[in-house]
């Protein structure tokens, strides 16, 4: 233990000294790479080869910045001299500290990426992973588990395991491992559930990078499940209106008192499906009936809100069908479609108002939407009447044309007196 401590102190000293004077350019000779790439040892050769494409290598950092030792030495025993800070492969519990030597140094980081945060290590210590590691549990994620050890790429590079499009799979690498999660008393299905959610559809199927993935709600370096009291705040970072409305609603205080996790109570956490009016009805999908008994004031309020929303949705569907029929007949319907969009926006607003849990607020928004939806339906009907008018007009015109053609044909058959059709 004393030796280990000594090595760590040495390493910290060496790294710290180097941290104050970052490399200006990659060294001309890197003995580590020269030996490790030609040894053909599956344990040490691939990492050495990967390092050539590492973001740190490109910035001029070499192996010794993390592993210690002396890259200028010709012989292994000199290069791997513990007196020169050589630690070999860092142990999991050493890794956050090694990375943090540079990444927690604002003066150093400013020279490479001034916009990058330097609180990753302190954040990590607050995370579930960091706390477990501090307790001596090495089967938890540390820096290299997510970013890789060699061949590290910037987060915005799509090859990085923590790039926005890959971070969920990276988390799932451990959090989908049933045995590992069972050992930590955690569920192993968050990715599976998330992949059935609206967030997954938006992010993966529609390539909308603004939709949340694991770190959007859990944090990245300080990853931890949001606490019961902070769920609404976390969801509210994107769903601002819903969160504000919910805080004004009659549910806000009772939920806090009962220790219910805000939004998650009705919408789940990972498997967040598209909400529907069925949430407000009684039945399997009901969210209200778990607290409000049938016939209670709460259940009646839910039924009123549901009826309003279903009514507006139905009117929009009716108007859409009429407009689609008119469009299929080639009628110009862009203005009516604009009304339909307004009606759909009103429905969205009305659905949002549900988070106030006051039927009157929902009713006002629905009434606005109904007026526009009825206008759109009337527009669709007008265009269908116009289509019929055009067709009637066409048949009358065709009748007149046919009549004129018939008259001409009769005249042609009669021939013209004095004509020399059969030749002179």
């Amino acid at each position, binding site marked *: 233990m004393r030796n280990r401590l000594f090595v760590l102190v040495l390493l910290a000293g060496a790294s710290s000294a180097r941290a104050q004077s970052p490399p200006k350019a990659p060294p001309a000779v890197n003995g580590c790479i020269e030996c490790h790439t030609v040894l053909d040892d599956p344990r040490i050769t691939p990492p050495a080869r990967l390092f050539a494409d590492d973001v740190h290598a490109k910035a001029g950092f070499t192996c010794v910045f993390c592993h210690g030792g002396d890259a200028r030495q010709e012989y292994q025993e000199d290069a791997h001299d513990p007196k020169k800070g050589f630690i070999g492969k860092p142990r999991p519990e050493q890794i956050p500290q090694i990375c943090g030597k540079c990444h927690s140094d604002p003066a150093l980081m400013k020279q490479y990426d001034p916009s990058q945060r330097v609180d990753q290590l302190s954040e990590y210590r607050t995370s579930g992973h960091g706390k477990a590691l501090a307790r001596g549990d090495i089967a938890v994620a540390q820096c290299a588990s997510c970013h890789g050890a060699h061949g590290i790429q910037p987060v915005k590079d799509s090859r990085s395991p923590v790039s926005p499009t890959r971070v969920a799979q990276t988390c799932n690498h451990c959090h989908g491992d049933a045995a590992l999660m069972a050992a930590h008393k955690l569920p192993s299905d968050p990715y599976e559930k998330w992949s059935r959610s609206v967030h997954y559809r938006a992010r993966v199927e529609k390539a909308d990078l603004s939709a949340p993935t694991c770190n959007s709600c859990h944090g990245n370096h300080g990853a931890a499940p949001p606490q019961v009291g902070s769920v609404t705040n976390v969801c509210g970072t994107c769903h601002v209106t819903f969160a504000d409305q919910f805080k004004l609603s009659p549910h806000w205080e009772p939920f806090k008192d009962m220790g219910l996790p805000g939004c998650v109570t009705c919408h789940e956490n990972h498997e967040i499906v598209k909400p529907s009016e069925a949430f407000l009805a009684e039945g399997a999908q009901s969210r209200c009936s778990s607290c409000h008994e049938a016939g209670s004031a709460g259940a009646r309020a839910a039924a009123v809100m549901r009826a309003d929303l279903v009514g507006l949705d139905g009117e929009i569907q009716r108007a859409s069908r009429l407009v689609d029929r008119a469009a299929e007949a080639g009628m*110009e319907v862009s203005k009516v479609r604009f009304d339909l969009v307004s009606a759909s926006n009103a429905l969205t607003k009305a659905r949002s108002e549900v988070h106030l849990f006051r039927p009157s607020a929902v009713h006002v928004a629905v009434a606005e939407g109904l007026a526009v939806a009825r206008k759109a339906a009337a527009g669709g009907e007008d265009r269908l009447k116009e289509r019929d008018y055009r067709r009637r007009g066409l048949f009358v015109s065709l009748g007149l044309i046919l009549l004129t053609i018939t008259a001409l044909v009769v005249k042609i058959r009669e021939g013209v007196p004095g004509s020399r059709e059969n030749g002179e």
Partner: protein
Amino acid sequence: MRAWARDRIGWDDLVHIAAKKRVPVHRYTLFYYLGGMALFLFLVQVATGILLLLYYRPSSSEAFESVQYVMADVPFGWLIRSIHSWGANLFVGVVIAHLISVLFLKAYRAPREMTWVTGAVLLFLALGFGFSGYLLPWNTLAFFATKVGTDVPAQIPVIGHLLSRILRGGSDVSGATLSRFYGIHVAILPAITTLILGAHLLLVQRHGMSIPRSVEGKSRRSISFVPEFLMRDMVGWLAAVGLLAALAAFFPWELGVKADPFASAPAGIRPEWYFLWMFQGLKYLPSKIAGIPGEMLGVFFFGALAAAVVAVPWLDRRGKQGVAVAAVLILIAAAVLTVLALLPVPTSARP
């Protein structure tokens, strides 16, 4: 009244000329009606085009909306625009059919060489009308098709890029392109067409109808141009009006989505049907042929073909079928390429 007209415009002479003009009757007489049909459809285009002018606004910020207004709010605007759009396609089709029939009936024989030349130029003008008019509604399909179309002249060595810039009014298709395409469509092309069409009609009048060699001397039957041929012509014209009205009522010409110059090109961009064979042909050319860019060779081929079409009366050597055989081969190739261009593109092959 008649005396007034006689003294001032020589009405009696005109009536005399009209009464004297006769049209031969034989088994190919039907093809004579194509010229009259093309002229009638051209006049329909002129009439509907003038009406559209009253509402159309040639700027990238207003063009689409003005056409939308014509289609939705102007009384019978939908009818006029749809007839103009459908009529344009029918017009080009009839002009092509007219040219093909004249080609195979060898009606370009002396002394009608210049009638053929003016007719060929009129076909190119019709294609120019189609190309310039396609962009005017400023919708996505037209915008990107024009981008592709105005890229083609850039393949010509030395002057190509300058030509493309002149056509576009800049380095890319923009509001400036729309303004000049509008000018070309409603002023430059109509002025040139009026002159060439006048010459064409004058030459037809001067030389009369050509009788195909295979029926030459076999029949001396003929009918008067006025009123017998004209009445038959009118049957065709009325049928064309009925067809255009039916197409307008059942399939009003689509307006599409307003062009967004900053959006990426949607899949399935293609020009009007009469340019499809060239569009598809250029796609199949390899990037280099004997060290020369394939597209450049393609453009040279189409240029040479256009020149050859104009020069048909002088390329045709009496007694040889070279021109007819070449025409059949080119028409078959054009038809095959058009069909290939119309086939749905497999999803995996889309860029």
